[in-house]
């Protein structure tokens, strides 16, 4: 699926012609990330993070496969094999630090990607499926990252495994047996470590599979853009290659500079010192915290301190409330496309939405991250409760209401107009001359009732 003016792949040599007939893989690549994929010409740097997320997935798979050649998933030796990697294996320290910090960078990039989507409402029709698959990828990433953190079998690994599987014990009736089943024992040990290793190796490939679906779904309507106005004509787009390959190449260089600075100069700054102490089932560290990328959700988990009780009867214990809220905080993203019904996508043209995004949601996420890493004492508990309340209010109450009452700012007629201030045939350039028929073509993604068309 693509626009009518998308360039067609034309094999030049006899060999590429032969390949194209037998297995049109070059054609697939050409249409996916090559000159055959027309992309809105006005994407800003926030649109770099999809490609960067894909890059870090590859970094994690490559370094992970290599580390698995030296690691042993056995509670007796796991900690020692990690030290073996750090001390004896050629470049082992570099590979392990790249893998450990690669996970953090994967999450940094993914969070920017998600919040880009939230600000520009990239989840709206016709792109709901891309968003849903993205949430699935995020959930898989969280599971993978959690299990990976258990593997070094340090103190935080052990107690993280204990606490996170303990979440499931909050469920009524099936909770306790479920936790024992997950761990294959009554506390984390060999059985848990081995299954976590197996799944930690498997899930990245599942993620890669869902990423392919995510990109496939993206190519049906085509990329969104900062104005939120759908592509109308050829002058609205440029071919992905070389325009966005070069831009992504530059973005990748910048992120790699940051990444290598962390890997080579501050490799443990995002980790926790306690994980350099071998797991000890008899002693809990003074202050258990998850990895930084889980902190907002950890804060939501801990925000519920009181049982839901009336007249002395407990209906839902606080522990279960916290677990439900934590899972709900991500699951709410699954219904997001149907909660926000504003016909305008981009936050730039939504004055009310924009205020709640910058002064509501973003500070809330920052407060939750800080509270998640802080000890469970005042004022952090009250702060995290206020922030948690706002988090749910934002998605479930505020978004539906403002999408009803907001008066959006006038949208540009087209992307071309947004970029160069005018959209008269003959004044455009780049993508080529405007094809008169292209302008009026019924584009993929424009809904039949026109509800998503810009206010003209």
């Amino acid at each position, binding site marked *: 699926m693509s626009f009518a003016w998308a360039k067609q792949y034309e094999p030049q040599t006899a060999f590429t012609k032969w390949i194209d007939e037998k297995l049109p893989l070059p054609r697939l690549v050409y249409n996916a990330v090559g000159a055959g994929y027309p992309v809105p*010409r006005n994407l800003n740097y926030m649109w770099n993070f999809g490609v960067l997320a894909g890059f870090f997935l590859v970094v994690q798979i490559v370094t992970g496969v290599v580390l698995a050649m030296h690691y042993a998933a056995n509670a007796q030796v796991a900690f*020692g094999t990690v*030290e073996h990697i*750090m*001390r004896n294996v050629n470049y082992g*320290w*570099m590979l392990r630090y790249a893998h450990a910090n690669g996970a953090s960078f994967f999450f940094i990039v993914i969070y920017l990607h998600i919040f880009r989507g939230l600000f520009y409402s990239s989840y709206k029709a016709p792109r709901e499926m891309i968003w849903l698959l993205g949430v699935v990828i995020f959930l898989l990433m969280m599971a993978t990252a959690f299990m990976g953190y258990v593997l070094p079998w340090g103190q935080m690994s052990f107690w993280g495994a204990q606490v996170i599987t303990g979440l499931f014990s909050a469920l009524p009736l099936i909770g306790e047996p479920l936790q024992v089943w997950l761990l294959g024992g009554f506390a984390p040990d060999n059985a848990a470590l081995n299954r976590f290793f197996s799944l930690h190796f498997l899930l990245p490939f599942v993620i890669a599979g869902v990423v392919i679906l995510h990109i496939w779904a993206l190519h049906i309507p085509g990329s969104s853009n900062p104005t939120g106005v759908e592509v109308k004509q050829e002058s609205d787009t*440029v071919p992905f290659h070389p*325009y966005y390959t*070069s*831009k992504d*190449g*530059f973005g*990748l*260089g*910048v992120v*790699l*500079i940051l990444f*290598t*600075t962390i*890997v*080579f*100069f501050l*490799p*443990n700054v995002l980790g926790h*010192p*306690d994980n*350099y102490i*071998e797991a000890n089932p008899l002693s809990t560290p*003074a202050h258990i915290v998850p990895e930084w990328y889980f902190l907002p959700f950890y804060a939501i988990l801990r*925000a*519920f*301190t*009181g049982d*839901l009780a009336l007249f002395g009867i407990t209906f839902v214990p*606080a522990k279960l*409330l916290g677990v439900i*809220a934590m899972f709900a905080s991500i699951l709410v993203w699954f219904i997001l496309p*149907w*909660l926000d*019904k504003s016909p305008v996508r981009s936050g730039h043209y939504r004055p009310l939405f924009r205020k709640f995004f910058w002064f509501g949601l973003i500070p809330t996420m920052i407060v939750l991250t800080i509270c998640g890493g802080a000890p469970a004492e*005042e*004022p952090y*508990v*009250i702060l995290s*409760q*206020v922030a*948690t*309340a706002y988090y*749910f*209010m934002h*998605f*479930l*109450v505020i978004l*539906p209401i403002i999408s009803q009452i907001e008066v959006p700012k006038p949208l540009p007629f087209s992307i071309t107009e947004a*970029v*160069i*201030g005018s959209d008269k045939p003959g004044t455009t*350039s*780049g993508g080529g001359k405007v094809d008169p028929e292209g302008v009026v073509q019924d584009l993929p993604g424009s809904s039949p009732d026109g509800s998503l068309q810009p206010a003209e």
Partner: protein
Amino acid sequence: MTIRLGGIIVGLAITAILVLWSLVPGFINFAFGPPAEKQASYAFYEHGDGPEGGFTFDGALGTWDVAQLQRGYQVYKEVCSACHSLKFVAFRNLQQLGYTEAEVDAEAASWTVPGIDPNTGETTTRPGEPTDYFPMPFANNIAAAAANNNAIPPDLSLMTKARGDGSNYVYDLLTGYGEADPELAAKVGFETPPGLYFNKHFPNVNIAMAPPLVIDGQVSYADGTEATIPQMSKDVAAFLTWTAEPSLVQRKQTGWFVIGFLIFATALAFLSYKQIWAGMKPKKK
């Protein structure tokens, strides 16, 4: 519409539960309840800042001071090793401290490691070889606890990475022994429990480890450096930084090279990107 209505109802319900059952009781307790009690010991804790002048390996350009590492090794060998193991470090690694192969052989042989009699198969001891790892001072954790008033001396291989700001922490801990201010102690009813020792840089100020470095000159340095307690503490902290991360200096040096290359490559990528977009990015305003 139903989804939005349902969402609003669920959102208000979650908020109501959170506010009425968690936030309000918590706030009332915080505002009107008794203030949270702090352990008396926290009145005595002081955060240390590490040795004066820092370490030679600090910062992005820092490198090892090989002579200092050798002195630190001597302190470990003569003092710490009585109770603390160094199980992830092998004698062969000492070559990194500037010892020659022959010196490493001799150093290894000066340690006694567990062995097996090749004829009878019985456990025995033998002099160490470069491939051996530093021996454990106690046969197992139970023996270690029994010999140390129930506290197990931790392995030191990774100590400076297992504590926040670890190199400074080790230095501060070793120089933090002393007496609690008696006036303040009497006021808050603080007393160091028997069998523990007061250390103002230990998180709960009562540490099970007896002061290991007690007098100046406890170790006689071969290079003539005066072995004051701060000097020995600093040297052994440097040595333990090396045991925790032998690749530290190599890592930073590789880092400079990699980052330099990346800056060059990114600059080229930027020029290439600008060149490609030169015809596409009109001046907008």
